[in-house]
């Protein structure tokens, strides 16, 4: 089992390495380069050459990649092109904000999704199951900004319960922060809950068709008892995987939702960087997002190995 897990973790690290190459390469293959992109049409060949030298662009690509990557894993992402500030220092508070938002949403979403999924599975085919099904299908097919703006329209503008923009400051109290971030957190929650809920429901239901469940019913146990004692422990593995995968999805959903609510997180930071074509910022954010994504995916795999006895033996 340990061997399977170690292999999986090493594979994750290799993926991260490959992804970092891809991110770096994606920003290299453009016609022209960063210098001409930043300076624009009016650049003379002289200033262009000087700027290239300043950025170190006159050296070969693989050397720049190695330098960038070795610095990046030590937390040094260099300075932003637009304001010359150190990227790590400007990114850290934004990263914390994003983590706060994502954690907030996850805290609501995970218990809600698993709970409702189980309720829907217990009441399969009854009205509550149908309602849950329709609502979650709608939540999946609707764009996140639509949910976001709807929530703002009703809860911030019409009812005035929450602020419409989630501006947070460094020295904001915890209670106030929870209040201000409530709307984006709920939007994110709706997004990921639907996926998790449907997966929870279907994995509980697929276990329900197993012979030993039929046996439990034939013994005369109640439906609730069969589900909680016999079905749920075996449905745990796919549910845990789905939760971890959806937390990864949450990391991405954050980009759009932060823009809707003007929330100062890393998603907005990246979108800002992209509109200003600030290459080091884009690379840094891309690496952070991809890193979080890979870590959560690897965690999902490792957890599913841990909880599933059949996967513990290495093949």
């Amino acid at each position, binding site marked *: 089992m340990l061997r399977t897990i170690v292999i999986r973790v090493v594979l994750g690290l290799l993926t991260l390495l490959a992804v970092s190459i891809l991110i770096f390469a994606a920003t290299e293959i453009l016609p022209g380069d960063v210098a001409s992109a930043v300076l624009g049409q009016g650049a003379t060949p002289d200033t262009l050459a000087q700027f290239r030298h300043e950025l170190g662009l006159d050296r070969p690509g693989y050397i720049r990649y190695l330098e960038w990557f070795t610095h990046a894993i030590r937390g040094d992402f260099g300075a932003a092109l637009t304001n010359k500030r150190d990227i790590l220092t400007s990114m850290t508070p934004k990263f914390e904000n994003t983590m706060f938002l994502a954690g907030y949403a996850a805290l609501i979403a995970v218990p809600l999704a698993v709970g409702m999924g189980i309720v829907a599975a217990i009441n399969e085919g009854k009205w509550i199951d149908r309602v849950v099904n329709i609502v979650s299908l709608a939540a999946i097919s609707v764009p996140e900004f639509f949910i976001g703006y709807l929530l703002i329209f009703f809860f911030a503008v019409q009812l005035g319960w929450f602020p419409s923009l989630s501006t947070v400051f460094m020295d904001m109290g915890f209670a106030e922060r929870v209040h201000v971030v409530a709307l984006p957190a709920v939007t994110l929650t709706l997004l990921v809950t639907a996926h998790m809920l449907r997966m929870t429901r279907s994995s509980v239901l697929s276990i329900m068709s197993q012979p030993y469940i039929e046996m439990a019913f034939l013994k005369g146990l109640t439906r609730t008892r069969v589900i909680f004692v016999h079905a749920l422990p075996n449905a745990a593995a796919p549910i845990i995987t789905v939760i971890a995968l959806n937390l990864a999805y949450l990391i991405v959903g954050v980009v759009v939702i932060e823009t809707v609510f003007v929330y100062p997180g890393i998603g907005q930071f990246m979108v800002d960087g*992209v509109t200003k074509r600030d290459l080091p910022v884009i690379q840094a954010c*891309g690496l952070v997002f991809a890193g979080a994504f890979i870590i959560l995916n690897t965690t999902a795999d490792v957890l599913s190995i841990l909880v599933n006895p059949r996967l513990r033996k290495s093949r």
Partner: protein
Amino acid sequence: MRIFGYKPPFTAWVGIFIVGVFVFVAIFAPWIAPYSESDSVADTWSAPSAAYLLGTDNIGRDLLSRVMYGARTTIGVALMTTILSFLLGTVMGIWAAVGGRVVDQVLSRIVDVMLSIPLLVFALIILSMFGSSLVTLILTIAVLDSTRVFRLARAVAMNLVVLEYVEAARLRGEGLWWIIRREILPNALPPMISEFGLRFCFNFLFVASLSFLGLGIQPPLADWGGMVRDNGRAISFGLTAPLWPAMAIALMTIGVNLIVDWILSINARPSGASAEM
């Protein structure tokens, strides 16, 4: 009424109706839109009235007309992206399945790495370098999305290449291209039809999200995601302006999803009816 010999259930009819209306509007936008997509005809964010059924946008253009023209660009771009992504993904997927171990390994590992970067983040990185012209936008999303199609096409084709008739074709000396075209492709397509609808939904939302972030379809072209972005601030004043294009996006995706659900339920039928699709 029957379509392709199948009777659509009520939900599928709702989906067909929604998609039909949007496609109609998209095709005939210049003839049925009350105003042009780029003319300022009234004050900024004027309320819905008889003259402007949905009100006007941030620079006084008629929202209804822009939603109609937006259907053109948004649906058009998403459709072209999906078609391209399917061509690329299917060809690559089948190539991986029939081309031998080395080809398969190389293609699959590249796709693995691409899939381990969140798609939106990847698209942002590429678009930031190439700029968001329509062509780069469509190409970028198509290439990124083809990774998903590749996975499915490869899995489907893998199951087909081991079947007897492919073996028979090989033994009687048919070329690789002939086998792909005559034996594998016709049999791989039916399970991929519903996937086309799902990928369309995904690409559609993806284009809308990118435009919403300001990196997708660029003004002056009207598109739904960009319209939500332009009018986003209006929501704080209690105006509904950004809700209309957002609702159009939501309705379109729900409509396509309803149709896909129906097709999926046909394909899932045990009678083997899927082969006719």
